[in-house]
């Protein structure tokens, strides 16, 4: 049934303020750091009770005009400083203001609702905020990588090292077995897509078989990677259901709220950043070295006579194929420029970025271009508009890595290629045939193309009308429209002359995938604030409509005899299309009361959601929330400056996947061109509905020792019920599975974030931040028999969902001490780490700043199948030890290749120098500031027992459960950059 609705938009304009008065006095002043005495740039100075607002220039100076003649109060704020109210006597025309650093961001406003926020000191949840000062220290291919090691309770891990990203953000452990694992991303009010669209490389690699394979092994990029970190002002992370409940049915994996930079009134600012750098292979997995022909034959891995053929009578040659393949160190560059400024009515921020980061493998790399214009306009005192527009282009050349069954994947082939064979390019440009494998990976890397080209347009408009702002009461009405549209084009071209190509009888393959994704959302909100005697009550309510569609068209063309990439040149052409359309409608209402002179904060709210993904698209699902925080100490008392206890409860949902409510007939098959429909293996859920995630969080926050120490500690428990599960049907029914809601899982964990300022003088500061988090999951109820998910079966290690056990346990075959086989589902490990910890040190001395971020993961396991492949091909770098391992494995011990995922690495190191003004002016004429910096990312391992490239790996991309499977990924790199920042 369809209902047509005619929209009557009541355009409520009017109330435009009259012309501004040019009368009044002029006040000038300077804003400085109260400790160092240095000027504070971009501080905002407002005259309370008026719309007068200016910001300070590079020297901290400001000029206010039209200030009333009597006594007025100035409100001075700057990012990273505590706000200050300054009384300005009648007739005063100048003022100097000193601001104290807000080291622990206690005055930062943190979101609590769709349009409401609260200062951190009253916050009832551990919401992590990462500001622009902690972003962009060093370039990364994707935004999420900028957050690694900076958020307690966030497990942010890359799936491989391929240029362009592919990163999973898991907040507070697992939330689901089969539903989505991605947080909800809200960027300037736009619900931005983080969909990961595979390239269809599977059509070459055959990593997953069958007529309609799942393409999860294509090394896909989740699209939030497109966002340019350089344009981001702040990122807030609502980790659990208690904080995210007001986002409802899509917030089970947490919500990441991103704000981009905006202009400030005052002087026009220009910032230019130029970077140069390179990437290099971080770690080689190595290859076996053979002493001589006898050693080759003795290994038993090769046909008799191989040793003599390649090594003759002397020593065997050693060719470092890995170095040949992944040793590229090309110049990377990034140029960013932005201009911002405005008046108290109109503010703008415009920015452009170009970056080019070549990969460490030939023919791979990542490029990004971004143009942004953010505009803020006020119409009088009551109406304002904030517009954001962003055009993005990203282009990733990703090569072919990960699992493979057809002899394509570079490193898969390397694991089986002995070091004594020379695969290097011949003088005539051809490549030698690899006699040991189906392909020469150097040839493949040189000739095969795997390109991902994304054009994206993101825009939002936020209108705010304040019809009521009198006395104690104010009302804001907010309308937000958001749009996120992108087209992703994947082209993979495998020329007919590649060594592996003739194998399928159809030499040459061209794969073209065109995908377009549209996310739209329309929000209406009303916020009423009432300030009473000693309390403030904020009531908000709203409605949110969201629609998203994704259409993926794929063409596979084979037998490209002429070597032409155009898909119409092939003789065997296959076409597939997959469409999705999802509509969501949500309503919410929330009451926040701040009372007892801002010591007690109480919040209650509810969200109701309906979705086209549910079996009943008309049914509303309700997600309540409640939170309370109390500041035991709100003014310094002894050693304690602040102490707050807090507790919060909330529920969120996780939507069914598109199509789970349907029982379709497969209409994509035919018989020599005659269409024929058949049943598909799964019956839809006739009562399918969202998973429900209920979380309770308690904790305390404190500041000690005159703001030298800050501690934030939380404990949470989340219970996820109505899991989306599949029940196996007896196959004689004609169906394999049925989808239904059932089962429960629980996650408990602790998070601690601490900051210390051990040293703070006029010329030097040392600031230490640390995070610690730990969580453990348990399947508490499972209405289906124990089942395995992800991975390649018990003989290689697989994830097993089992009542009473951890959701991320890895099981498989194992040999007991006496050599007899243990049960094939013996628990061999767990992907979930025991804990994660990070340590960030920021040392500044005069004009020098040193930033060091150490990221530590303790425990957890990885299924290292790269090593298994090396051992199986007799190519282990440790030689005979590998032969022993594979022998043990062959007797039935998947446990042989389950390894520890512990690591400790230097995530970021950066050293910068702010040039003295005079020198800066001499070197770069006209600039007001200049900074030079050297930085490195993932520089060295401090420690890891892992033998593969990196325990941060996922052959199957982003997964709710089955990460940590290592099958010849794109090797991760370390990157180095030299940057010049100029401010004008």
């Amino acid at each position, binding site marked *: 049934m369809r209902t047509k609705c005619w929209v009557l938009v009541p355009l409520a304009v009017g109330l435009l303020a009259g012309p501004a008065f040019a009368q009044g006095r002029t006040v000038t002043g300077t804003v400085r750091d109260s400790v160092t005495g240095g000027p504070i740039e971009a501080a905002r100075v407002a005259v309370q009770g008026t719309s007068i607002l200016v910001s300070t220039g590079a020297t901290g100076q400001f000029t206010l005009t039209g200030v009333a003649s009597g006594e007025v109060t100035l409100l001075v704020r700057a990012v990273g400083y505590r706000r200050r109210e300054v009384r300005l006597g009648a007739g005063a025309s100048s003022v100097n203001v000193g601001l104290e650093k807000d080291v622990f961001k206690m005055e930062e406003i943190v979101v609590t609702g769709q349009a409401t926020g609260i200062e951190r000191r009253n916050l009832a949840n551990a919401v992590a905020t990462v500001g622009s000062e902690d972003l962009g220290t060093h370039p990364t291919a994707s935004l999420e990588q900028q957050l690694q090691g900076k958020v307690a309770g966030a497990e942010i891990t890359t799936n491989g090292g391929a240029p362009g990203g592919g990163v999973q953000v898991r907040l507070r452990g697992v939330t689901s077995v089969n539903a989505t694992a991605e947080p909800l991303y809200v960027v300037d009010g736009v619900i931005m897509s983080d969909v990961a669209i595979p390239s269809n490389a599977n059509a070459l690699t055959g990593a997953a078989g069958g007529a309609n394979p799942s393409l999860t092994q294509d090394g896909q990029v989740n699209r939030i990677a497109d966002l340019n970190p350089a344009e981001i002002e702040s990122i807030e992370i609502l980790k659990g259901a208690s904080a995210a409940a007001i986002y409802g049915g899509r917030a089970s994996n947490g919500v990441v709220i991103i704000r981009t930079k905006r202009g400030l009134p005052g002087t026009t600012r220009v910032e230019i950043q130029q970077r140069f750098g390179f990437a290099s292979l971080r770690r080689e997995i190595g290859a076996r070295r053979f002493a001589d022909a006898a050693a080759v034959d003795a290994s038993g891995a090769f046909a008799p006579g191989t040793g003599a053929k390649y090594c003759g009578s002397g020593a065997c040659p050693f060719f470092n194929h890995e170095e040949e393949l992944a040793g590229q160190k090309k110049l990377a560059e990034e140029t960013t420029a932005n201009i911002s400024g405005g008046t108290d009515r109109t503010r703008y921020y415009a920015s452009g970025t170009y970056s080019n980061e070549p990969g460490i493998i030939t023919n791979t790399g990542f490029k990004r271009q971004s143009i942004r214009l953010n505009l803020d306009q006020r119409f009088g005192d009551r109406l304002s508009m904030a517009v954001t527009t962003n055009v993005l282009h990203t282009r990733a050349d990703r090569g072919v890595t990960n699992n493979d069954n057809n002899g394509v994947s570079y490193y898969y082939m390397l694991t089986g290629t002995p070091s004594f064979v020379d695969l290097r390019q011949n003088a005539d440009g051809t490549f030698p045939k690899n006699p040991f494998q189906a392909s020469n990976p150097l040839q493949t890397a040189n000739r095969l193309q795997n390109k991902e080209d994304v054009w994206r347009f993101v825009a939002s408009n936020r209108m705010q009308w304040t019809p009521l702002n009198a006395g104690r009461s104010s009302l804001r009405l907010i309308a937000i429209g958001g749009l996120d549209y992108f087209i992703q084009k994947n082209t993979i071209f495998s020329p007919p002359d590649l060594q592996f190509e003739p194998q399928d009888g159809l030499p040459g393959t061209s794969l073209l995938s065109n995908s377009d994704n549209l996310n739209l959302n329309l929000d209406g909100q009303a916020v009423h604030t009432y300030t009473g005697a000693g309390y403030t009550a904020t009531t908000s309510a709203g409605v949110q409509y969201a629609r998203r569609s994704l259409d993926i068209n794929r063409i596979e063309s084979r037998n490209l005899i002429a070597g032409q990439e155009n898909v119409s040149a092939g003789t065997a052409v296959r076409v597939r299309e997959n469409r999705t359309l999802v509509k969501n409608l949500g309503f919410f209402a929330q009451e926040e009361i701040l009372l007892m002179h801002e010591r007690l904060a109480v919040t209650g709210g509810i969200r109701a959601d309906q979705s086209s993904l549910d079996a009943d698209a008309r049914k509303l699902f309700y997600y309540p929330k409640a939170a309370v925080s109390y500041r035991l100490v709100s003014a310094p008392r002894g050693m304690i400056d602040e102490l707050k206890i807090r507790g919060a409860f909330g529920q969120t949902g996780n939507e069914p996947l598109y199509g789970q409510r349907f029982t379709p007939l497969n209409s994509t098959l035919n*018989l020599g061109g005659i269409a024929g429909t058949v049943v598909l293996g799964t019956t839809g859920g006739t009562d399918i509905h969202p998973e429900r995630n209920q979380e309770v969080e308690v904790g305390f926050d404190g500041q000690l020792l005159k703001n030298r120490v800050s501690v934030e500690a939380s404990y949470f428990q989340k219970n996820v019920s109505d899991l989306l599960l599949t029940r196996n049907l007896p196959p004689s029914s004609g169906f394999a599975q049925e989808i239904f809601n059932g089962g429960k899982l629980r996650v408990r964990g602790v998070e601690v974030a601490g900051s210390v300022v051990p040293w703070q003088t006029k010329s030097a500061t040392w600031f230490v931040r640390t995070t610690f988090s730990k969580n453990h999951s348990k399947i508490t109820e499972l209405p289906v028999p124990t089942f395995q998910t992800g991975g390649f079966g018990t003989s290689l290690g697989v994830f097993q969902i089992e009542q009473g056990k951890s959701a991320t346990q890895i099981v498989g075959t194992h040999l007991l001490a006496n050599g007899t086989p243990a049960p094939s589902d013996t628990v061999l490990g767990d992907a979930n780490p025991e804990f994660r910890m990070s340590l960030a040190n920021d040392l500044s001395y005069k004009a020098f700043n040193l930033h060091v971020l150490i990221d530590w993961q303790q425990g957890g396991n990885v299924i290292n199948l790269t090593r298994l492949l090396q051992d199986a091909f007799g190519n282990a770098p440790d030689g005979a030890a590998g032969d022993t391992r594979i022998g043990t494995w062959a007797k039935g011990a998947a446990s042989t290749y389950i390894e520890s995922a512990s690591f400790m690495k230097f995530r970021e190191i950066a050293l910068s120098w702010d040039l003295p003004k005079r020198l800066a002016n001499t070197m770069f004429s006209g600039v007001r500031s200049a900074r030079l910096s050297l930085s490195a990312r993932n520089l060295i391992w401090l420690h890891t027992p892992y033998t593969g490239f990196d325990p941060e790996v996922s052959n199957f991309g982003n997964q709710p459960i089955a990460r940590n499977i290592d099958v010849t990924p794109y090797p991760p790199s370390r990157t180095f950059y030299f940057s010049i920042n100029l401010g004008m």
Partner: protein
Amino acid sequence: MPPMTRILRFAPALLGALALAGCHSLDVADLNNPGLEELEKTPTAVGVNTAATGLLVGLRVAVAEPNGWITLLGAMGREGFNLNTNSDPRYVKEMLVGPLDPGDFGSAFWAAAYANIRNSVILLHAVDGVAGLSPSEKEGLRGFAKTIQALELLNVVLTRDANGAVIDVDRSPTGDPGAIATKADTYARINTLLDEARTHLQAAGSAFSFPLGSGFTGFDTPASFLKFNRAVRARAAIYNNDFSGALTALSQSFLDTAAPLSTGVYHVFSTGSGDATNNILQGAPVIRANPTLVTAAQLRVGGQPDLRVTTKIVTGDPGTGTSGTATFTSDKHFTLYPTNSSPVAIIRNEELILLRAEANLGLTNVTQALVDINFIRTNSGGLPVYAGATTAAAVLDELLYNKRYSLMWEGGFSWFDYRHYSKLTTLPRLVTGGSFFTKMPFPTNECLARSPAPTLGCSPEVGQ
């Protein structure tokens, strides 16, 4: 608290926004596939005809795959093999040594057959309720659907044999599963379906309402399709030891010694988008023939081997498969399927002539049997007429030889036939510890759905 009257001024705007949002329909249909429910509840003539062709799509599933019907059953009957044991050691370990596991390859050829049986059940219901088709067209659809359903059930019982099969298939897919019927009951059900189909086809007029594709050329009218139906009926009767029933059915089938031996009904393949390809083509790097097919072949006058060997097998690059303890090497390649568009026989004239020989032999009519055997020996094998002993036992061996070479790599016939006469162990074992299975187990989920689990078919099948 706040002055409510002021707030209430804005209530209409808010309510308007809510109402606007509330009346927007969120229903989204399946944008990728038609719904099964539509076919079941509101069938259209086009939908029904497309679903009918779908039965042939379903019938073709897993026939010509590296782990499909021909390959795995061919391994158990020692015809040929998939030697890609790097990616999956089960091709040798499980299929040549065993045991056959209900959770592994042992579960094959059950789910796909019952999926297609479900297709036919849905089609039969849809035909009852559809408007826009004439009574004779409906009869044609019924005759077609029941014939295909019977053929799928025959395939099931041929692999499960004494373990039995599920014949009570017209039930809710999510309800209790149908009981496991005995082998005898399953054959009875197959016969009933085929005979009911005959009655329908006889009332089906001169043409079907749906296309059957090029694999059914010559058998695509109700009258000619009935000859295919009778051919299937004859095959079922032979494996059920109903030899006189087989002779009757054969007489109504397309058996014709004047027609080419290749006359018959085929699965067709192409590289067209959405179509299936034949993935055991000659160029497939992993498929090899059993080399003893060459060495054990009878010789023609002049010493050359049986024509059926020289036309179906060539020597090429060697392949080795291993299961850890057992290794197997062959350099013999089948030439039956030169390209990935090569068709695969469902049933053809050569088999029918051999079935007639088998029926006559079963009725101890040895002389009559030898007429057909010699026809195949000379016409298909290029061999001289049979000169061996004419005891029933000796002629049976000769018949099995001819079925093995005539129907080589076409769908597990060696395994069916040598098992039928308890002669599997006369085939070469090929690998140390190699064994022969008489039946395949049920898939694990078929056993788990029943409490208690069936006594037969739910444990790993150990070979002889």
